[in-house]
């Protein structure tokens, strides 16, 4: 009887959480924002603006609890994929409408008839607390467009980009500490040419900062990049890119970094860990000429990526280490509990391209769910590439891949190739690798081709 009572209380509590606390807060956008005419979206009955991009519509809204999302699509469709599939969202379809329960603070891609070039991204976002808003030193208000130019954030500042604010330009965190960027606004750089383009958000030689909630869209170059920065986090950031070399997040010569609960759809690499210089275009555009050029040529340590969803489009890879590895050591990098919903091109889900001198060691990929990848599962190389600058080659050791599940898509092969007998991959462990339902226990079963590699094991 007691257990039934407890169960009833728990059920009531859960139902209260699901049904009573669900609330939707649509954002107020300025006029003349790009609208996706082919989708209409409602969240708990409130219409949500669908912001257009060339690679899909984006419906973002603040919400608490799980909310009912209803979508109308203007052309006929036969099949639906809602990714990541690990969320288990099952839509109800009624003619041109579909509806489903959207989990709290989640990011999904709704795809119709496998047309992956025209999905609808739906982002349910936890609202900021009043305390968070009150802490802001600088506010970019909702319902307005803001020309940022190169906006230098100072130490100690909190910058609030309100949901519904539309920004263009770049945030620069240079030689600063104790900074936060918060808020659900959109940094949309689609109208900035590649020639005039810059990082949308860049950290240089900074520490103790966090980047939270912001949407970054259509950047003409690396979208966000951090050079020689320590002790910082990136949380709930959403990136949608479609332009050449638009890497989602470049972590360059950094230490003690957490990337959490983010969503990246980029044409080039989604998340990249490197050791190299700040790019020339930034030096030119941001008058950084008097600073040391190779500030990012620094050891990399303790990088954690978790709870994120990645879509790598035509170029690059989903998780990349390299090609630039101009440091003594790049170590303790972990990628955990992530969903890879697409790798469209010839790249790898997991790639290490050690193109310079670093020893790359202690890399862990764990609990990764892979849906539609088409290139390689692992693309690990030590090589002299066209990005290489060091004359000597490095090596790679202690790489663990655990609980890797490829649930659908085409067969995926892997490559692990060192450079020569002196520069090799050593100690690569696969544990609980499952491809299309089959547990893989050998390199042969994995279709893994290796050269200059020692001790590749499957458990």
């Amino acid at each position, binding site marked *: 009887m007691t257990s039934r009572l407890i169960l009833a209380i728990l059920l009531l509590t859960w139902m209260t959480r699901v049904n009573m606390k669900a609330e939707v807060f649509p954002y107020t956008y300025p006029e003349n924002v790009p609208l996706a005419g082919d989708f209409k979206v409602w969240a708990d009955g409130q219409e949500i603006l669908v912001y257009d991009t060339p690679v899909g519509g984006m419906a973002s809204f603040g919400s608490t609890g799980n909310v009912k999302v209803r979508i109308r699509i203007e052309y006929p469709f036969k099949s639906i994929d809602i990714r990541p599939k690990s969320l288990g969202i099952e839509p109800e379809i009624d003619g041109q409408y579909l509806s489903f329960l959207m989990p709290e603070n989640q990011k999904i891609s709704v795809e119709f008839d496998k047309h992956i*070039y025209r999905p609808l991204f739906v982002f349910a976002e936890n609202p900021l607390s009043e305390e968070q808003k009150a802490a802001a030193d600088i506010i970019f208000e909702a319902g307005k467009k803001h020309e940022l130019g190169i906006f230098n954030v100072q130490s100690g500042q909190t910058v609030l980009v309100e949901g519904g604010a539309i920004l263009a330009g770049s945030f620069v965190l240079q030689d600063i500490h104790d900074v936060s960027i918060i808020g659900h606004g959109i940094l949309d750089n689609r109208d900035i040419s590649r020639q005039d383009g810059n990082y949308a958000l860049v950290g240089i030689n900074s520490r103790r900062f966090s980047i939270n909630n912001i949407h970054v869209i259509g950047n003409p170059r690396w979208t966000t990049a951090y050079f020689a920065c320590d002790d910082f986090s990136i949380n709930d950031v959403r990136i949608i890119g479609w332009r050449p070399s638009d890497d989602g997040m470049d972590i360059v010569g950094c230490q003690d970094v957490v990337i959490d609960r983010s969503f990246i759809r980029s044409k080039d690499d989604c998340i990249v860990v490197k050791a190299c210089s700040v790019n020339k275009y930034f030096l030119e555009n941001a008058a950084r000429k008097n600073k040391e050029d190779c500030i990012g040529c620094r050891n990399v340590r303790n990088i954690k990526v978790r709870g994120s969803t990645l879509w790598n489009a035509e170029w690059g890879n989903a998780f990349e280490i390299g*090609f630039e590895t101009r440091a003594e050591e790049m170590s303790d990098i972990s990628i955990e509990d992530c969903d890879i919903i697409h790798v469209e091109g010839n790249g790898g889900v997991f790639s290490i391209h050690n193109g310079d001198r670093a020893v790359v060691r202690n890399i862990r990929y764990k609990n990764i769910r892979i849906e539609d990848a088409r*290139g390689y599962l692992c693309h690990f190389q030590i090589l002299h590439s*066209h990005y290489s600058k060091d004359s000597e080659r490095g090596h790679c050791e202690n790489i663990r891949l655990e609980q890797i599940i490829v649930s659908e898509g085409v067969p995926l*092969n892997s490559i692990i190739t060192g450079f020569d007998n002196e520069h090799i991959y050593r100690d690569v462990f696969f544990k609980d690798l499952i491809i299309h339902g089959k547990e893989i226990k050998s390199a042969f079963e994995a279709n893994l081709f290796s050269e200059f590699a020692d001790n590749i094991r499957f458990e």
Partner: protein
Amino acid sequence: MKHILYTLIMLSLLGNCKPDSSWLHLSGEMEGVTYSDFYQVRVNGHAAPLYYSQVGAFVSFTFSGNVEIEIECEGAVHKAEVLPGHLDIGKKIEGKKVVLSLDRATDCFVKINDNYVYPLMVFAHGVSDWMVDSLDEKVRYFAADRVYEAGEIHLNSGETLFIEEGAYVKGCVVAEGASDIRICGNGILEGSMYPQMEKPAINLKDCRNVRIEGLISVDPSFRNLVLNRCTNVEVKDFTGIGTRERRMSDDGINIIESCDVIIEGAFINARNNCIALQSNPNVTRPVERIRVRNSVFWKGDFGMVMEFGYKTDDLIARDVEYSNIDVLHSLSGVFGLSSKSGKASNFRFSNIRVSDVRHMLFAINQLGENASMVNIRFEDVTVLDGPICFSDIHAITEDGIRGISFENLKYGEKKILNPLDAHFRKFKGDVIFK
């Protein structure tokens, strides 16, 4: 002629004579050649040397009659595809082995358990009378069963280069301003010793009346076969095997400002483009009257299988036909017609079978106002298998892309009659489906 007779005698002596008088010639392993142990291959019971390349291992031999090829793997074989599939080569799977039965000369891929990263290539040659006289001073003769550190081989007008099946030549071939040259034989030309992007395996410039027959080019430091401003070229049964290094542009055949080119029976396994039509920096003449037929293409990471795109500034390419082509694998694209200022007209792609293409099918893009793609016909193109790939047709001026027709385009059994079913991502231009 004497050498051919000698070779035939050796074939009889060395081969495993079966009751039906089949015979074969298999070279032994030679010092200085890199071999692969990814598979163990036996031909009619004899251990076959398995040549190494970065993009697959291969066996090469000459035979008549029937042969049985036994391929042994490290683990159990669940699936084995002998490609192109329409060759209909007999095969059986026995545990860790796949056994093929050949009764005719064949070049094919063997893809085991969906392994596309390191397939086996089989080059089973029939006996050819190359009509090459080793004593002729105009003949550069590389005989079988030897490794040659040849370096750059320069060919002059009227000369023949013969690389016999079983010969392994390290070097590259160059000719400039030569006419009536011939490169032939089923031997191997390897170019990995040169710095990356430096020397194509065969680089012909301003040459006329060229015949290339046979030859296996492997691991070139740059492209496999470059025809630069050449006229009247016949390429028959040429094999180009590329590389995997990132810096490599390992294109199969580059046709640069050349005309009257026939490519017949090419077999290309490249990481980059298989066939590329291109211009030099200061273009002086068009690419025209190009025929590519009865060929097999397997492409890795970059570029397009049949490409008019990169390096086509101000190039005019016209009267180009691809027919009876098997595209067996591509991690990127297949049909590429994209240019900033090049003009492509009167192209015909017919009877093309496409398998396991992972990314893009058609990329037809007018990237600058001066570029145009006019009268491009795709006839009987069938996508046999693989994931859904997107395509683009994108004109930026009203008449930039016109006369594009898809006739009997099929995805599996489904005939495609509209851009939505063809998964076009961009669709702007004068295009019809029928």
